[in-house]
């Protein structure tokens, strides 16, 4: 196992098409890092640069104490799980898992022992003779993980490995991935666009947007103190409300809003959509007459609020209040968080 | 469409393409270049002296009645082969698409002539139509038709058309059948609900939808008639009688190999090359259009 560090890593295809604009991060040995961002933000490219499948235009990537910029993927001591699994369709599960080991010239006994162990962990022992097409989506996913595990690499790289699974399986595999990481303790980089995956799996996460790292931190820290409006809007469902106020942006999470009497109203929302979810109720609307808002703007801004299920939500005017301790402030020009 | 770059090696890709490129250069480019070179030269009867004559060989060709006649023969021949072949195959494919029972058996019984060499197809039909002993000749005589393709140019043309079409039916049939089977049933059913009978449905719905296949087969059949029928002709009429069946390719062969007129034969080769290039361009234009569907 090894630490990984990215030093001002850049990627450009042509002089005017840059897709990664200098990302730096130190990943400790054994850490589970999630790279989160919308599609096209460069998160997969970044991972593929660590894997050695994309060249590094500028900057430096080290794994352990080696700079790997110019090393072939096979020499980086990494293993990768692909989004579509990339199982060799004509090989059995056993052959798929052992292929990399055979190429490395391990002894037959050693290979069989490693494959058996991985198959046990992943509950694949019954399927070792099958071809990938005879497996379910979840089983294929496990084979792809098995192929990475048997290699016993320094670093695991996951490229949206759960996105082809249905919702239920995804939850289950999330749990298994966590268990696996606890058990093996291998440094892992995990790319996803799914914030729930990121929140549940990550020890630390890196939120990317348009080729830049917007914020790096532990999930709850990122949630509690989003560094930019992008992060504030990307994490949390529904996302944080951003309301123009006094030349700044006031951020308040939907769950921090509560209904109140007219007199205490800090926001007055014209509700036009109600989604009762059982445990709570989501209401959506826009800020109505400026009167209830202290007369200082924000009229027309969309607002979502998560209300307790006991609240009798109706369309129409809804006065809301919040705790000032839960408020975030952002600079509208740069999108950056304003502290204090 | 391109792959993401995956492998890097300074020498391996060259080693991989080397065998094909070597064969291509030695047996395709070098001879083709020589054909172009010879086409500008005139050789004396003994092949001892050659002189550069520019476009003279080409000029001579286009003044040569035989050569112009060969163009006409080729045009008539390819038109007949393509039209008759496509018509018969389309009829058979439409019928095979209609029947529920035995469709596979019919397909099997119709595809195998593809395996017959053109020259063998020529021999088979030449035997059936042999002027004195042919069984078809005998039947035709019963109908009062005097059949002798060795003397009658039109009959000779008919013979090579029949032999060439016979061999090509299976190919056209397979493509038409595939085309018909790819037409959604719901379209036919919609037309039936609109009140169109089977014949009307065929001409107003099915045939227009098959037009890409038909056009494709038209090009392929013309190419086939231009080049692949060499064996049919050489095994039967050998261009005769009186050049009535001498298509362009046969004339290249005849003038070059039998008459040993290198300059003229090479000039004809060059003209044929332009025809092939034109046909290839037509074919690729068509494929591009097909992609856009």
């Amino acid at each position, binding site marked *: 196992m090894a630490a990984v560090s990215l030093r001002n890593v850049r990627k450009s295809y042509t002089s005017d098409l840059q897709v990664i604009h200098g990302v730096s991060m130190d990943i400790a040995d054994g850490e589970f890092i999630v790279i989160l961002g919308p599609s096209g933000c460069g998160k997969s490219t970044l991972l593929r640069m660590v894997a050695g499948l994309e060249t590094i235009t500028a900057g430096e990537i080290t794994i352990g104490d080696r700079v790997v910029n110019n090393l072939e*993927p096979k020499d980086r001591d990494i293993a990768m799980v692909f989004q579509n699994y990339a199982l060799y369709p004509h090989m059995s599960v056993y052959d798929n898992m052992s292929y990399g080991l055979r190429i490395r010239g391990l002894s037959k006994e050693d290979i069989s022992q490693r494959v058996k162990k991985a198959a046990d962990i992943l509950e694949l022992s019954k399927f070792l003779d099958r071809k990938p097409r005879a497996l379910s989506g979840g089983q294929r996913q496990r084979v792809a993980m098995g192929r990475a595990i048997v290699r016993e690499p320094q670093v695991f790289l996951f490229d949206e490995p759960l996105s082809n699974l249905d919702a239920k399986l995804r939850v289950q595999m999330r749990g298994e991935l966590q268990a696996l990481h606890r058990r093996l303790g291998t440094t892992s980089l995990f790319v996803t666009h799914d914030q729930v995956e990121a929140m549940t799996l990550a020890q630390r996460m890196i939120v990317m947007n348009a080729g830049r790292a917007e914020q790096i931190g532990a999930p709850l820290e990122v949630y509690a103190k989003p560094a930019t409006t992008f992060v504030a809007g990307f994490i949390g469902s529904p996302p944080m409300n951003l309301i123009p106020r006094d030349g700044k942006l006031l951020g308040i999470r939907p769950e921090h809003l509560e209904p109140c009497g007219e007199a205490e109203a800090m926001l007055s929302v014209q509700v036009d959509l109600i989604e009762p979810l059982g445990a709570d109720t989501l209401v959506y609307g826009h800020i109505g007459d400026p009167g209830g808002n202290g007369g200082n703007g924000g009229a027309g801004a969309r607002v979502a609020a998560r209300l307790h299920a006991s609240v009798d939500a109706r369309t129409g005017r809804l006065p809301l209040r919040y705790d000032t301790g839960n408020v975030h402030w952002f600079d509208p020009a740069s999108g950056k968080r304003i502290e204090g | 469409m391109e792959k*993401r770059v995956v492998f890097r090696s300074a020498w391996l890709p060259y080693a991989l393409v080397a065998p094909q490129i070597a064969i291509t250069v030695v047996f395709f480019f070098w001879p083709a270049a*020589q054909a172009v070179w010879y086409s500008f030269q005139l050789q004396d009867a003994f092949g001892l002296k050659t002189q550069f004559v520019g476009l003279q060989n080409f000029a001579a060709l286009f003044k040569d009645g035989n050569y112009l006649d060969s163009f006409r023969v080729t045009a008539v021949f390819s038109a007949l082969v393509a039209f008759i072949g496509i018509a018969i195959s389309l009829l058979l494919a439409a019928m095979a698409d209609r029947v529920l029972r035995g469709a596979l058996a019919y397909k099997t019984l119709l595809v195998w002539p593809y395996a017959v060499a053109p020259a063998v197809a020529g021999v088979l039909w030449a035997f059936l139509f042999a002027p004195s002993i042919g069984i078809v000749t005998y039947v035709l005589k019963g109908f009062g038709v005097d059949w002798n393709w060795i003397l009658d140019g039109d009959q000779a043309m008919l013979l090579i058309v029949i032999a060439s079409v*016979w061999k090509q039916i299976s190919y056209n049939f397979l493509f038409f059948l595939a085309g018909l089977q790819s037409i959604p049933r719901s379209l036919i059913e919609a037309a039936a609900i609109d009140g169109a009978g089977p014949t009307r449905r065929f001409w107003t719905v099915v045939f227009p939808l098959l037009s890409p296949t038909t056009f494709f087969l038209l090009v392929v059949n013309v190419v086939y008639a231009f080049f692949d029928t060499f*064996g049919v002709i050489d095994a039967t009429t050998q261009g005769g009688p009186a050049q009535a069946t001498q298509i362009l390719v046969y004339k290249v062969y005849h003038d070059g190999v039998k008459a040993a007129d290198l300059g003229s034969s090479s000039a004809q080769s060059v003209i044929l090359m332009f025809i092939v290039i034109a046909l290839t361009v037509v074919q690729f234009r068509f494929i591009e259009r097909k992609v856009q569907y």
Partner: protein
Amino acid sequence: MVENRPGLTFFAHAVLVAGVLLVAFPVYVTFVASTHTLEAILQVPMPLWPGDRFWENYTQVLTAGSTKGSKAAAATMLVNSTVMALVIPLGKITISILSAFAIVYFRFPLRMFIFWMIFVTLMLPVEVRIIPTFKVIADLGMLNSYAGLTVPLIASATATFLFRQFFMTVPDELAEAARVDGASPMRFFRDVLLPLSKTTMAALFVIQFIYGWNQYLWPLLITTDESMYTTVIGIKRMIVGGDATNEWNLIMATAILAMLPPALVVLLMQKWFVKGLVETEK
């Protein structure tokens, strides 16, 4: 079938049966002629039922050949045809899959140039470069040899494009997974690409087997030695003159022998045959 019209269905069957008979008729007559004595065939009309000379005629063509024109034994010619029909597809598949691999999986200078070089061969069929190609073969001393019969025919743009097209459909991630697994390019080619190409190779093999077996102009040009004749050439060389001067019974027996192997390949491997036919034309 949209509506049930027994009359139409009957008509369809009638047309198809007529088509099948029309297609089969020449071959039936050929077979009948191959089982009679020459005298029987020269009668007008010739018999329409098989005769009793099957063994005699076939034994003679296989071992001794005809007495007029080419005297090559069909057994030798069948061997020559088989060599052509096997070496051409195998050679074609080999060189085409390698060059397609290079063109799809590598980026190198001259790549597009090589791609176009291969493409242009589409426009240079043997028929348009007869004499100069013959000269090249003669200069290389390849007349009357298996190498001369096969090597010039194994370069082909269609086969290369077919493999290229197939490789484009192979997910990029497979090559990347192999790279992460530590496979070298050739190892990936052997362990992953080759097994996945099996069906494409089978389809191509069937089409090219028929192509090789049925070659006519090429062997006609470069074989003068009877021992190098292919079956198709042999038949043509057995025809020496007018109707009555040819040994039609033996010619027809040889024709049956010439048709049998490719016809069997088409019928037994129909699935690959249709796939090959349709895909090489895309």
